């Protein structure tokens, strides 16, 4: 409800020219997405982030990557991958996973610049990620902080799709959740993850997983984009 109000507020700002043009273009393009269209008529961006931790409100994004999926095809040349310049990113929990150290961020861009580009890249696209709420939330948190707008893209969670495919109940035990982590699912669908725990490596694997899941769910009568939205 609060998010809905925020969106309305931002939309009226656009109408009154109180918001930067690129942000308004992003918002309008997302508002034009019609989730009641057949699935293949929308554009999807499968993405992943590498972060300093798992708290969407406290942790920071180190890198973000996405690739376009349209008409059942992964379109590699329409892809995005950037490192974000952050101070003191090293920590015991996440550093061993993403293995990006402060010194690797020499080429990185400022957060504001990267997220602004990200919003342009994701114009009019449905976002897709594995355990998407975390990635969407952390991006949204920082977008809100920097630009005072929420994310307008609808999003799809491949984790949820996989569970739906197996009709697994949402509140199942942690052991069964493990069967739906990216590694296990990729193994199940024989998807090779080229560079696990890099944003692009995971995004590409998720994109392949997405193609598989969508196909199987389509066979069960889910034909429209809205049938997949979380």
């Amino acid at each position, binding site marked *: 409800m609060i998010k809905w109000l925020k969106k309305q507020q931002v939309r009226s700002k656009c109408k009154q020219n109180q918001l930067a043009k690129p942000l308004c273009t992003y918002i309008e393009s997302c508002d034009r997405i019609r989730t009641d269209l057949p699935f293949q008529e929308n554009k999807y961006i499968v993405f992943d982030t590498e972060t300093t931790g798992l708290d969407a409100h406290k942790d920071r994004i180190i890198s973000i*990557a996405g690739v376009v999926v349209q008409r059942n*095809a992964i379109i*590699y040349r329409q*892809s995005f991958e950037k490192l974000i310049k952050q101070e003191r990113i090293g920590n015991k929990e996440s550093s061993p996973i993403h293995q990006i150290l402060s010194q690797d961020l020499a080429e990185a861009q400022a957060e504001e610049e990267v997220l602004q580009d990200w919003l342009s890249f994701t114009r009019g696209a449905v976002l897709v990620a594995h355990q998407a709420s975390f990635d969407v939330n952390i991006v949204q948190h920082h977008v809100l902080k920097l630009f005072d707008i929420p994310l307008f893209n609808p999003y799809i969670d491949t984790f949820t799709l996989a569970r739906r495919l197996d009709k697994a109940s949402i509140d199942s035990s942690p052991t069964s959740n493990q069967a739906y982590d990216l590694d296990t699912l990729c193994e199940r669908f024989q998807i090779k993850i*080229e560079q696990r725990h890099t944003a692009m490596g995971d995004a*590409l694997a998720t994109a392949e997983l997405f193609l598989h899941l969508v196909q199987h769910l389509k066979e069960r009568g889910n034909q429209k984009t809205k049938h997949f939205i979380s």
Partner: protein
Amino acid sequence: MTSFSALQSIVNFLKAHPPFSFIAIEDLYSLAEEVELVFFAQNESIFRMNQPPNAYFYIVKKGAIRLTQEQDNIAVLVDECATGDVFGVRAIFAEDTYLSSATAAEDSLVYKVDVEKAKKIVQDNSRVAMYFASIFASGLSMHKDEERKARRFLVQKEDWFFNSAGIDTIQIQPQKAVITCLLEKSIQYGATLMTRHKVGSLVLVNEQGHPAGIVTDTDLRKKVIAKGQSSDLPLLTVMSSPVLTIGLGYSLLEVLLIMTAHKVSHLCITEDGSTQSKVIGIISQRDVLLLQGNNPAVIAKHIQQSEDIDLIRHLRDQAEKLVHSYLYQELAIPLISNIITEINDTLIEKAVHLAQAKLTDKGLPPPDVKFCWLSLGSEGRKEQLLRTDQDNALVYEDTHDEEKAVAHRDYFLQMTKEVTRLLVHWGFVECAADIMASNPTWCQPLSQWENYFEEWISFPDEKAVMNMTIFFDFRPIAGEFALADRLKQYIFDSIQRNSAFLSYLAKNALQNLPPLSFFSNFIVEKNGEHKDLFDIKARAMMPLADAARIFMLEFNLPIYGSTFERFEAVSKLEENLKDICTSAALAYEIFIKHRALTGFNEDNDGRYINPKDLNKLEKQILKNAFETITKLQKILEVRYQVNYLQ
């Protein structure tokens, strides 16, 4: 916007799979930009037979794609592509409709590559283009339909079938050993049955004995072994079905036409010709070829039995037509040249026999020394597909008696004159350079031949080298073959003594550089009768034949072999030369076929081809074959230390 690492994932895949593994990494990145990964659900269609080509070709990343051909609304499996296999690639070479339909056999991820954009990258990478073309040319197919298309690339005439001798009259017979097996039996059972009965195919039948499918060696190899499929599964899971059936009473010609039209290699013979009756036999493409193979044998036999020189001439013409039809049927060149060699050899034997008989009639009986008729040049290498010049010689035993020596000489000269006269009558043109046994210089006792070779090997001047390319390829045809063997051994020994000789020969062989600028600028004759034409003999075939000859001499190959056979023999003897010899043999096959077809079409020796008459695919294939020559010449240069030679 493009992420480097997104492209990297494609590049990593491509570089692990030929032919993309031959492309430079930076080019792979440009190629990757044109690649999309598409998901195809099981049974989803990618393209359909007879449709115009998409703007893409495809590489299987995961899963399996079936290529099928529809016949009377039934799909016949042509090939199945797995990870790394390329399909739909023909669009690069020929603008034509698809010859098969591609369907996902299971859920599959397929890279699709924009042809227009990829074209340049592929064409700039000759090894990639070579890969595609060599697949076409070698029969090591990724995709049978495309290979077939490519193999057909030289066929222009529609009526070739009707030129061939006899095949329209020979009736097919059901093969005695048709082995049938119930559909439900296991793959293991079927394989055992095939092994026990020594057959390459099995007809699967239902309980009524009606044919339901065929399983061949290839099916077992490709669908069971290569895929790690369990052999406990029923045979019907791997069979090709439905079966094409015919009844009895068809001619070989009709059988061939059916096989060609439906692009199948087996036909099942049933009682009433339909699939709803009992199986009584099976006929394979191979059977047809073997049955046809009887024809040259029959012709050769007729030649042997005949004393009528005009009838023999007629038989020779008939044989030539047969060869013509073989070429258009795309039979393997070694097979065709073996057939024509056999016929030519029979003719020569016949000519020698008739000449001796004639001399005996005139009161000149054969002397008591043995002789051996030698064919030289391409005839000696068993590579004549057309009637080219006569190149031959005669060697006979020495005698110490000078008087007898003169008598022998007179006799053999009279004999050779008669032989060459007969050969001319039968359509072999006289050699312009007079390298014929009827020339006294080339009608000599063994000791004189040894002198000739000793001279050429010790003092290889330019003229000697030219002679050598003809004379080193001698092959015994009639008379006492041991004389030829002795001469051959003498040559090997002499080369041992003159170690620089092979280097000299190699240097000479390198002078005919292949036209590498084939595409942009064909190397053509600058003036004269053949202005603007390309000399395929001098520029393409000779460099290969020269190399094979040098290898033959280095490795002391005892065979009187063709260029292919020489390359083949060397590839078995020397691991280092295996790859190059294999591709060289293939390249030679391409050239010889090209030359033969040009010759037939223009009624000449096919030596000159007009680059304008070549289509894109032909140019591509020729260009690739030229690359092999370049590679081979580099090897010669190093192996025989040509650069140290002054």
